[in-house]
């Protein structure tokens, strides 16, 4: 048997040679996926970020909603509603659909509603408005409790309605 320094040369490799090839290819695919996740995260496709922020408005343009498209379950978020030209001095009634309320926990509303009236289709929040206000902004602080799509309809007493569509990641 061949020997080096009096020690026999091993006939078979003892190191785990042959490592590589297909495994390296899979590793590189994994790296690309990891990088893609981070880029998507930075862009806002997996949570908050530039591509996540969006807005929608009612058909007549009286109500505009700003919100995040993508949310995380149990991570607080805000839906901001801007109501233009509210009826001078009259309270603002805002109805929120029950499907939306079943899937989120309302943490607080800013300003505080004067009253809340529940009906089978949802809850109507009533806000006092200043007679001099040309627009009113209402912030709905919420925490998603279920993952999946979240469809919210915010309707005013004059019939203006804005739709909010969000996706909640688990």
């Amino acid at each position, binding site marked *: 048997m061949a020997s080096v320094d009096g020690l026999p040369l*091993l*006939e078979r*490799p003892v190191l785990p040679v*042959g490592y590589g090839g297909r495994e390296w290819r899979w590793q590189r695919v994994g790296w690309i996926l990891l990088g893609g996740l981070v880029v998507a995260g*930075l862009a806002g496709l997996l949570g*908050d970020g530039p591509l996540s922020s969006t807005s929608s408005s009612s058909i007549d343009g009286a109500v505009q909603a700003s919100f995040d498209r993508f949310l995380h379950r149990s*991570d607080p978020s805000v839906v901001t509603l801007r109501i233009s030209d509210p009826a001078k001095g009259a309270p603002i009634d805002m109805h929120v659909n029950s499907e939306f309320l079943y899937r989120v926990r309302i943490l607080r509303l800013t300003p505080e509603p004067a009253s809340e009236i529940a009906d089978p289709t949802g809850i109507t929040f009533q806000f006092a408005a200043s007679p001099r206000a040309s627009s009113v902004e209402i912030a709905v602080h919420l925490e998603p409790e279920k993952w999946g799509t979240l469809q919210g309809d915010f309707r005013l007493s004059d019939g203006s309605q804005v739709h909010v569509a969000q996706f909640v990641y688990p």
Partner: protein
Amino acid sequence: MESVLRDATTYFIVWLVFRISGKRSLSEISTFDFVLLLIISETTQAALVDDDNSVMNSVLLIATFFTIELGLSFLKEWSPLLDRIIDSTPLLIFAEGKLLSASARKERVDAEDVLEAARALRGLESLEQIKYAVLERNGEITIIPKEGATTEWGRLHTRVAVTAVRGTSLSSFRSPRAEGVPEVIVRTRDSSAGFEHHRPVRPADPRSSISRSADCERGESSPLSELSG
């Protein structure tokens, strides 16, 4: 986006803290260090997670950590300067029977630490048996014994390792630089003299053993032949 940025910031801050605390900080963990690590991990977790305990946030945090790690490894390979900034360099702390006190003091290493590593790694009994001691980038101390100083125990371990390498067909190794030709980089640094040397050693024949490197054929000693005692 916030998760990724928070993660990257925390990573940088933790790296910076450990980097400026020196090589020896992580090599040996005392009870106090252990408590410190626990506190750091708790604080870091609070900063990373905030109120978001969702699965997606965890996925993003993990992906960001690994991407930063991968990115840094590519950067370190591309730029030796960045490599040195991020991971530091091995430091010669003991040479030919003498502790290089300037380097050793700055790295908070004493002769006892060198002797402890010599006993643990090589089974050596005294400092006189040590040729070089190097403080590696991970804070470990590695020992190169003097000719004939290695005990039977140390020699056995070295020979097993060398034989394992020799017994392997070198063409099986894949090097990103040259297929089948492993490259051994010998890097020595004497901080007192401000001298640093990178010496690539390649076997003349890819199928020859590593110890028979070009330097050996010229009659110079190879780092691996020194190790074989």
